[in-house]
């Protein structure tokens, strides 16, 4: 979706605010928000792509006003209710519905370390024929899907070159919407800075993005 989260190239967001000796979390509630999200994911009720998209659905003015972990909480509440892990009434009251069944949490302090160490690979070991070769010139489609996509606006319809084939990965555009993994090749694509931004960009500079096969057309 052409949301405010797709920020590449926007102006007037003010200078970067750097904090010396920044703590990992600024407030205890941030660490709790982070941990709750990670622990809930272990239920496998939604994908990481779905969580990202849920945050993209926060209305633009609110998205810009919220801090990062506020966005997490907002996205998490929607997914919890949508997938039935808790009801909205339970979120609001903080009390479980009387006589609701007691579940067994999939994530415990004991199985945490191996789960973190293994991660959740998005690559898939399936034979998929790549549509493009290293060195080939490509152009991301001029597409504007209303759902989740990892194709930022600023590279659509711009000329690029395939630098590397990373192999086969789950396709977020379908996976975020529970429409299947649709595994396909992801390529590192180089765009000259001047192709993206015109003469104001430095002559030799470049921007690299990893783009899925479905985003690209031969140029």
């Amino acid at each position: 979706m052409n949301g405010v989260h797709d920020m590449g190239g926007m102006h007037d967001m003010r200078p970067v605010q750097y904090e010396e000796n920044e703590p990992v979390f600024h407030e205890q509630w941030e660490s709790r928000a982070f941990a709750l999200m990670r622990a809930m994911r272990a239920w496998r009720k939604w994908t990481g792509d779905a969580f990202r998209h849920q945050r993209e659905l926060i209305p633009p003015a609110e998205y810009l006003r919220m801090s990062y972990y506020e966005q997490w909480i907002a996205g998490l509440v929607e997914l919890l209710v949508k997938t039935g892990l808790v009801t909205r009434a339970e979120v609001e009251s903080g009390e479980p519905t009387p006589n609701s069944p007691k579940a067994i949490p999939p994530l415990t302090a004991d199985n945490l370390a191996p789960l973190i160490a293994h991660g959740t690979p998005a690559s898939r070991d399936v034979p998929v024929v790549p549509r493009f070769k290293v060195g080939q010139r490509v152009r991301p489609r001029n597409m504007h899907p209303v759902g989740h996509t990892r194709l930022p606006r600023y590279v659509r319809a711009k000329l690029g070159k395939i630098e590397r084939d990373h192999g086969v990965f789950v396709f977020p555009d379908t996976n975020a919407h529970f429409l299947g993994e649709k595994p396909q090749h992801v390529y590192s694509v180089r765009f000259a800075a001047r192709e993206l931004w015109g003469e104001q960009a430095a002559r030799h500079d470049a921007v690299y993005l990893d783009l899925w096969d479905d985003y690209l057309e031969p140029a």
Partner: protein
Amino acid sequence: MENSCTGCDSLGESQIRIGRTHEVRGVVDRAALDALIDTYEHKVGPRNGARVIARAWVDPAFKQRLLTDATAAISELGYSGHQGEHMVVVENTPKLHNLVVCTLCSCYPWPVLGLPPVWYKSAPYRSRAVIDPRGVLCEFGLELPEDVEVRVWDSTAELRYLVLPERPTGSEELSEEALAALVTRDAMIGVAKIAPPGEGSRA
């Protein structure tokens, strides 16, 4: 300030309510939450990445493996997993400077750098790193000559990027451990260079 917010109190309360409901319902385990927080506050962070960089500086064969298959090479040092499943390492040289951003969100290589700082996730950095990388670098105190190519890696897919900074001059005699102590988080994102020994640099 990016991190300040008027709604924090009510949000803090709402997540406490969610947390309590979940613990009672058995949806989450309190000890698992504490262990998660402890992991990312104390065990996983940029010191991991610094060890990877120092090893690459002293061991040419490791550096070669790191640039060819970063995920496997990094796991040799025991670092792997969530948000580092598919790693790429890009090398700075006197004529090439790499900078990492995620314009869509906050993608960042957790096993080697930990959780990202607020500025990395903020609108100013995400919006400008791709259109004006040299301006952003200037704000970080790094001015690059025109003949140095700046490569921006917008990590919007599943690959996670770590910059292999240039080894500073005057560090020839240092041990691997002493080299690791020179490596900063910012240099591994690409918003800084590594200062020669004794000159110091932030984060």
